[in-house]
């Protein structure tokens, strides 16, 4: 009955209630959509880059991250790859060899990152088939390469053309070779699309003269898994000394910090949004209490405790907030779903500048429901916290004074 009373009380002033609900609606809706786009975009950005480059997690000889020298290449037999694969969150455990070389075709030359990988092993987790723009993936035995679409465009490469790679290999040996382009892949991430060459692991080993050695092992896990937890679980499988298990945030601090920085900007906007509506809600709460002094006086006189009166006010406020929150989640859900399926793509100068910073010029929406629930919860809690002032004031209510008109 208290709930029913609270519910009816909020509808005593329909217009005010609708305005308040509307404010909550706008705040929760905007913050949910903004947050979904933000987190969805980060998620996509991370997944679209990290899988191919550092991996979500990576096993490497300690120190390799600071000095990516091929001279640190090591034999993969040293560690228990099978053991690492036992973890349910792990999607793939893949040895890689990474080096650098100049790539030339015709008159054009570009510095390139060369990634040697086990094509069969990583085909699935990297969704390589889906990336093919033209050509076909080379088998592990095939001495061919895969290049990003933008790189192909810049150098004027097509499938079947041969790219000259020239660099320094293991222990200062010369690394040089002519590699046929087997596939042109389309990556969303500009770094991968323009500056990276993929080739079967054994041919990379041949190019850099490392023998059977590799530089690191990439462990890709489910994007939804908790990174640090899995990292911690897997550490036990490594030899005690000589090897490190690093996560992408450690391996790619620029990306991580960039996201953190960008995130705080978005949070600030949401914070300001919340502040603005907090004032509105506070006004409503104040009006709700001041205009009902007489009634509070009567209720206290007949035996309703002040605490119970104040609680009812909190319930009324929570109802207002929840009402707005529920409506906004209902409206936000299809909007978020829409942007999830149809990402916002930028064009023109904005796109150029984003690409040049290594970011894909698009925004994706995360459909993680927790985002919306969090926003709804925050607004509801803020509203309830705003009741503190009238709540405390009500504790001083004197029925005789309150009923004096």
């Amino acid at each position, binding site marked *: 009955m208290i709930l029913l*009373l609270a519910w009816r009380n909020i*509808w005593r002033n329909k217009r005010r209630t609708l305005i308040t609900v509307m404010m909550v609606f706008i705040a929760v809706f905007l913050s949910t959509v903004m947050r979904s786009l933000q987190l969805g975009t980060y998620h996509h950005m991370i997944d679209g880059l990290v899988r191919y480059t550092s991996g979500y997690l990576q096993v490497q000889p300690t120190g390799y991250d600071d000095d990516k020298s091929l001279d640190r290449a090591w034999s993969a037999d040293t560690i228990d790859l099978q053991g690492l694969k036992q973890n349910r969150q792990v999607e793939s455990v893949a040895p890689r060899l990474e080096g650098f070389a100049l790539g030339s075709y015709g008159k054009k030359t570009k510095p390139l990152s060369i990634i040697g990988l086990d094509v069969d092993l990583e085909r699935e987790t990297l969704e390589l088939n889906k990336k093919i723009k033209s050509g076909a993936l080379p088998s592990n035995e095939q001495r061919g390469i895969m290049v990003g679409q933008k790189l192909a465009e810049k150098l004027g490469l097509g499938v079947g053309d041969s790219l000259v790679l020239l660099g320094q290999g293991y222990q200062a040996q010369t690394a040089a070779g002519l590699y046929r382009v087997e596939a042109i892949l389309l990556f969303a991430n500009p770094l991968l699309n323009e500056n990276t060459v993929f080739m079967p692991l054994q041919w990379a080993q041949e190019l850099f003269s490392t023998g059977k050695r590799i530089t690191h092992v990439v462990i890709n896990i489910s994007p939804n898994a908790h990174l640090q937890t899995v990292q911690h679980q897997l550490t036990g499988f490594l030899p005690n000394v000589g090897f490190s298990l690093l996560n992408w945030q450690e391996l790619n601090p620029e990306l991580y910090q960039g996201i953190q920085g960008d995130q705080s900007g978005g949070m600030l906007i949401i914070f300001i949004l919340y502040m603005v509506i907090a004032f509105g809600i506070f006004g409503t709460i104040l009006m709700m209490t001041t205009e009902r002094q*007489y009634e509070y006086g*009567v209720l206290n006189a*007949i*035996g309703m*405790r002040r605490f119970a009166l104040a609680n009812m006010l909190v319930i009324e406020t929570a109802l207002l907030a929840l009402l707005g929150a529920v409506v906004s989640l209902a409206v936000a859900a299809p909007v978020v779903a829409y942007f999830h399926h149809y990402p916002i793509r930028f064009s023109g100068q904005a796109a150029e500048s984003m690409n040049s910073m290594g970011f894909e010029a698009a925004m994706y929406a995360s459909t993680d429901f927790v985002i919306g629930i969090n926003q709804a919860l925050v607004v509801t809690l803020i509203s309830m916290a705003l009741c503190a002032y009238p709540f405390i004031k009500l504790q001083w209510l004197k*029925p*005789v004074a309150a009923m004096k008109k």
Partner: protein
Amino acid sequence: MSVIITKQLAKAYIDGPNTIHALQAVDLEIAQGEFTAIVGPSGSGKTTLLNIIGGLDACTSGQVFIDGRDITTLKDKELTNFRLQHIGFVFQAYNLIPVLSARENVEFIMLLQGVDKKARRQRADELLLAVGLEGQLHKRPAEMSGGQQQRVAVARALAAKPRFVLADEPTANLDSESTANLLDIMARLNAEEHTTFVFSTHDQRVIDRARRVITLQDGRITADVYNG
């Protein structure tokens, strides 16, 4: 034993340099089953007296015993609960919660007392029948006349099974027909259920219905008369 006893009750308001003695040395005893009117000119202290007896306001000095218990010593929280359990109130107007129906208004006080739902409903309907509002159970205060609202307020006051009902000018906003009607109901409840009523009034017709009339003047009892 008397339900209400006041001893040397005084209430003073400090108003700048002046002290207003709203009540002075009020000694009063009201027995179970009385039907008592407090009368007196405006400003004589009727409301002040009822508020202090009802535990709504503190006195400056003196004591108020309800069933032998000195309520002036109760802490605020205890006092609120004491009012809920032992005292029924009818105010001059706007007694009811506007968003609740007649029945819900009567049920509400029993909800505060922790009476279970079925018993609440049953007692509310009985009481509304007793005040002649069996047909208005679902009406909200705004849909009822002033007289009907006051009858709901009487039903609500009784719902809590109080030791007595205090009513400060319950008929002040009513026309003569509604006034007579409300008085009939109160008198009947008094006669049949032995409910103790203490009410203040200016209205001679109401005074005529009282069985005991206490007159206040400048905060002192100047007359105390039993009408047969």
